[in-house]
């Protein structure tokens, strides 16, 4: 029993990270119908930004203040990067077909990855440990570590913050209006470009937070760390219903748990732990075949 609880904790942990990244995907898709392929790489940019902030400020040992600075610093940097991408890569192609925007997104993703590899090298780097990592025993063998608790606390806090922004502020209402129908929102006088930029900033900040939190938990960062994680987070967004914010969270947690359960228990039914990445894609295929709108999504009829 304690093993099951442990695996559950492990799964919810990586699930929370997927959820943070998935939120960015789902928000951007909601307003632009664009799959921002580069979003997973923003997660990586956030982790690297945090790394350089920590190193430049000379942080080496555990420090709560340091963690806060690194977290918010990286979120700010990522927000800027996200906005720049939107402004210079996506806005000019918005008028073209979906395929064009998708290819552009792929291009941005490749650009970020290879730029970082060329400049910083493909080797992993150790992220400074800003947290004294202790394991707290729960019962039996089950334990939860400080960094895991941090991930839960921060991601829940950020998600609550996001909900508040979306449902209780004017900006959030504008975002919802734009995602409902971009042209009507424009007619209503909403500055859609500004809202779109803001959405990118918000999503990127969340992804960056995910990056820094992960770096505390698995302290090796490298320029290609965002590829698989980003793809799985996208699957999470689709699973929950793309465009749907609680759906992204639900999807993220589900994928995290499913993946960990397969790794931990799959051996007994012949599924090697190296099938881990296939879990997310298998779920994706199932969702697309059985319920493409996702768990919490609504089906949209295509009008002629």
């Amino acid at each position, binding site marked *: 029993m304690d093993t099951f609880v442990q695996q559950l904790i492990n799964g919810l942990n990586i699930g929370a990270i997927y959820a943070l990244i998935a939120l960015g995907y789902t928000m951007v898709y909601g307003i632009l*119908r664009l*799959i921002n392929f580069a979003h997973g790489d923003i997660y990586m940019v956030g982790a690297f930004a945090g790394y350089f902030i920590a190193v430049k400020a000379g942080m080496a040992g555990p420090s709560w203040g340091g963690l806060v600075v690194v977290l918010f610093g990286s979120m700010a940097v990522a927000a800027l990067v996200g906005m720049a991408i939107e402004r210079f*890569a996506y806005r*000019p*192609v918005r*008028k*073209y*077909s*979906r*395929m*064009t925007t*998708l*290819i*552009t997104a*792929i*291009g*941005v993703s*490749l*650009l970020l990855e*290879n*730029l970082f*590899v*060329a400049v910083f090298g493909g080797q992993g780097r150790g992220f400074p440990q800003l947290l004294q990592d202790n394991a707290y025993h729960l019962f039996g063998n089950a334990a939860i570590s400080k960094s895991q608790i941090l991930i839960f606390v921060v991601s829940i806090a950020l998600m609550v913050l996001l909900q508040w922004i979306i449902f209780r502020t004017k900006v959030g209402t504008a975002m919802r209006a734009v995602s409902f129908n971009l*042209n*009507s929102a*424009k*007619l209503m006088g909403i500055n859609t470009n500004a809202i779109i930029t803001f959405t990118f900033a918000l999503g990127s900040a969340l992804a960056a937070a995910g990056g820094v939190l992960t770096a505390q938990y698995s302290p090796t960062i490298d320029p290609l760390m965002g590829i698989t994680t980003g*793809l799985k987070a*996208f*699957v999470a967004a*689709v699973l929950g219903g793309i465009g749907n914010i609680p759906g992204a969270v639900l999807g993220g947690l589900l994928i995290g748990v499913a993946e960990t359960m397969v790794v931990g228990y799959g051996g007994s039914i012949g599924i*090697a732990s*190296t*099938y881990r*990445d*296939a879990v997310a*894609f*298998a779920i*994706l*295929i199932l969702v*697309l*075949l059985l319920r*493409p709108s996702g768990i919490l999504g609504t089906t949209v009829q*295509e009008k*002629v």
Partner: protein
Amino acid sequence: MLSFIKRVLVTLAILAVLYALNLVMSKQGLFGFGVPLYQVDLWKMAGINIILAVSLNLINGFTGQFSIGHIGFMAIGAYSSTFATVYYTQGLERWLTGVVGADVAAAIVFTFVILVGALAAAIAGLVVGIPSLRLRGDYLAIATLGFAEIIRIIIVNTNRVGGATGFRGCVDSANGVTCIDESMGRLTIPAYTNFFWIGLFAVITIVVIYNIVNSDAGRALISIREDELAAQAMGVNTTRYKVTSFVISSAFAGVAGALYGHWRLPHPGDFTFGRSFEIIIMIVLGGMGSITGSVLGALVVTFLPELLRQLPGGVYNYRLVIYALLLIIIMITRPQGMLGGREFGLSWLKRSRRLPEGTAAVGASKGVPVAEATVRAEKDVEN
């Protein structure tokens, strides 16, 4: 009758050219004229890339379906054909060698395993295509990506084909595991592939796809690309056409895979979705509705990095960054790629398919929404 003779002559001429080129590229050269082996590898890769790009163009460029998992079918082709070679055809080849000699036997066996690869990939294309092609644009893209990744992960986990460290054709023999076929004096996965075969299949791919595109079926595909609902309303069985073109496209990817697998032994690291993106770059660069465009795109993507390697400084290390930038800039400025929807130089062979200005395969706005036009009009009025 005359056109038939003409076609036969042209075919023979092409075969002769390929054969000569192959000799040039091989170790002995042709009349003392040879190509350095390192460059031969590049030309072989270019040929394989051409097959991949042209076949992907059929489904992405001409049918307008966004598949980004093409490499998965290449992987299936590579692994199924080498699997057949290692476990099934060795005895056949030995027997045939006694009958018709080593070269002909190798050719027969190789043709056979290539067909096996193509068939396996085609079946995979059917399995992937039928459920996925129901989906709309972006979802289809992600579904194909997902399938390609699943294929790769399954290969990584299958020890019979070498798993994560690649397939070297090592079989259990009397004295342990061996990767060398003593009786034939070569590796158990023989390097059948040479420039002749690659060139031959590249030509076949181009000819087949060209004929499809210029037939009635091709026009149906293009109509699906332009406006699927309208095509459906006009009575075109869109599902059947989409699936068929997907299967054909996958089959050729399988051929490319079989050729690759018997040259560079199959390794899952060669079939990541990064490679899928590379093929996409090829067809985008060249122009998504253009076969000559895909050929050009494939050549550029194959040779550009090597040219960059010659440049001083660390430019070579930034080549992937340059690609990515190139891709983005092309999408922003000229999304129809180098050739747009047009073919190069065929106007004096056949009647050219010139698409009307502004209706590039990718990049034209798909109709202006009414509201936007109204807003613009209002803005003009305000000013």
